[in-house]
């Protein structure tokens, strides 16, 4: 790092502490790994819950639809910190011990996955429901008119188009979940933010607060950017060909 900064700037940057951040790169890297894994498990759970939930909200009826949409309202209407604390302390998450290498308590990880994942499912369901409802009615009618059952028509004609239209919404959601993994800080899960705090809270290291925070901000930004670009790429790769006549 730039050690030879002008004196006043050096005072602001407190150059010595950049070396401290650099010296602890391994701690932060493991934090980033936990963050990415937590994002992946949460989004997977979110998709597995949100995709069917969106379909039920679009096509279902009766008590199933009521149940699903009520669960969605509750999840979307609760602050994520409250959810995470609730899942960690409020429900009997099995005491699973920890993963030694990355120093992660599995029960905290599980609670964070459930909270982030189910909330994401509630949001993803709305993205997907909106996409389903945006598909022209004529698509379904055309499918039915060649003799496809409603189920076949939805599966082969509506879903493939709706998933494509969901990409921008999912992009949003991926970014939000990635950043919200930091909320697992509240239950002490050793993800990026928690580890960052552990670093600067060491006795005598309170001068490194800004450096550590700036570095993890950069890490969050890089992860967000990479996630978005990946989804852009996937969206393009699976887009429906368009062309001039």
């Amino acid at each position, binding site marked *: 790092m730039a050690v030879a900064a002008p004196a006043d700037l050096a005072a602001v940057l407190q150059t010595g502490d950049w070396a401290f951040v650099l010296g602890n790169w391994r701690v932060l890297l493991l934090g980033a790994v936990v963050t990415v894994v937590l994002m992946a498990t949460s989004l997977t759970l979110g998709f597995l819950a949100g995709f069917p939930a969106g379909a039920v909200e679009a096509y279902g009826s009766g008590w199933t639809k009521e149940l699903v949409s009520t669960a969605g309202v509750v999840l979307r209407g609760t602050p994520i910190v409250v959810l995470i604390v609730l899942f960690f302390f409020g429900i009997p998450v099995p005491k699973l011990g920890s993963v030694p290498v990355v120093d992660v308590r599995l029960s905290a990880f599980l609670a964070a996955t459930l909270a982030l994942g189910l909330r994401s499912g509630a949001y993803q369901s709305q993205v997907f429901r909106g996409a389903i409802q945006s598909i*022209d009615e*004529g*698509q379904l*009618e*055309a*499918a*039915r*008119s*060649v*003799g*496809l*059952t409603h189920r*076949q028509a939805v599966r*082969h*004609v509506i879903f*493939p*188009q709706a998933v*494509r239209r969901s990409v921008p919404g999912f992009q949003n959601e991926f970014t939000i979940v990635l950043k919200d993994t930091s909320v697992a800080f509240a239950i002490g899960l050793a993800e990026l933010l928690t580890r960052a705090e552990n670093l600067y809270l060491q006795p005598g290291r309170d001068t490194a607060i800004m450096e550590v925070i700036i570095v993890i901000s950069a890490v969050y930004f890089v992860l967000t950017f990479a996630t978005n670009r990946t989804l852009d790429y996937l969206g393009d790769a699976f887009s*429906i*060909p*368009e*062309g*001039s*006549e």
Partner: protein
Amino acid sequence: MSLLEIEDVDKSYGDEEVLHDVSLAMDQRDVDVIVGPSGSGKSTLLRCVNRLTEVDDGAIYLDGEEIHGMDENDLRRRVGMVFQDFNLFAHRSALGNVTLGLTEVLELSETEAKSRAEEFLGRVGLADQADSYPSQLSGGQKQRVGIARALAMDPDLLLFDEPTSALDPELIGEVLAVMEDLAEGGMTMLCVTHEMGFARSAASTITFLDGGRIVERGPPEQLFETPEKERTRTFLGQLTDLNR
């Protein structure tokens, strides 16, 4: 026995009566053209035949069998439909539009479905556009894919719901040519259309529908030359002028 028999069909949407006591019969190879002002119930009548809409009262028979007793998917396999707005599956190529029903409904293998779809795309003159997506096709080409999609299911009867109304004038001819070919080939067709040239040359019967009731029904010469009702004369006269 008639291939299609519509008997005293009534249909209302809320308080609005769309069809009232509509009856007509078609034999195999007949081409029946339905004309009428907008809101006269033409589309609703077509949609009752493949049960995209259910009648309130009356009965419809396909080959002697009452269609409400039939499995609706089986009925729709036997009664193809071509839509005004094409309704091609936007995410599938021209070929994929035709194969979907073949693999999912007729349960053909991918290979069989593909070769059959190619055959039918060829029949509507689009063999070279098999891999194009709907957004890459012109309106006339889209509608011909729509016809191939319906035709490939080997239906007993084809319904056309204003197949040329969404087309630019210069694209109408290619679609009508395909329809005329089909008529000549003996396909039974029930068409809502305002193409009077097609009606004159291809129709076996013209039905004039107004306000949900059949005003007059008969062979084209009769309706064009010696209609019984003054309204028929006025309406057909207007259409013919428009088509000129």
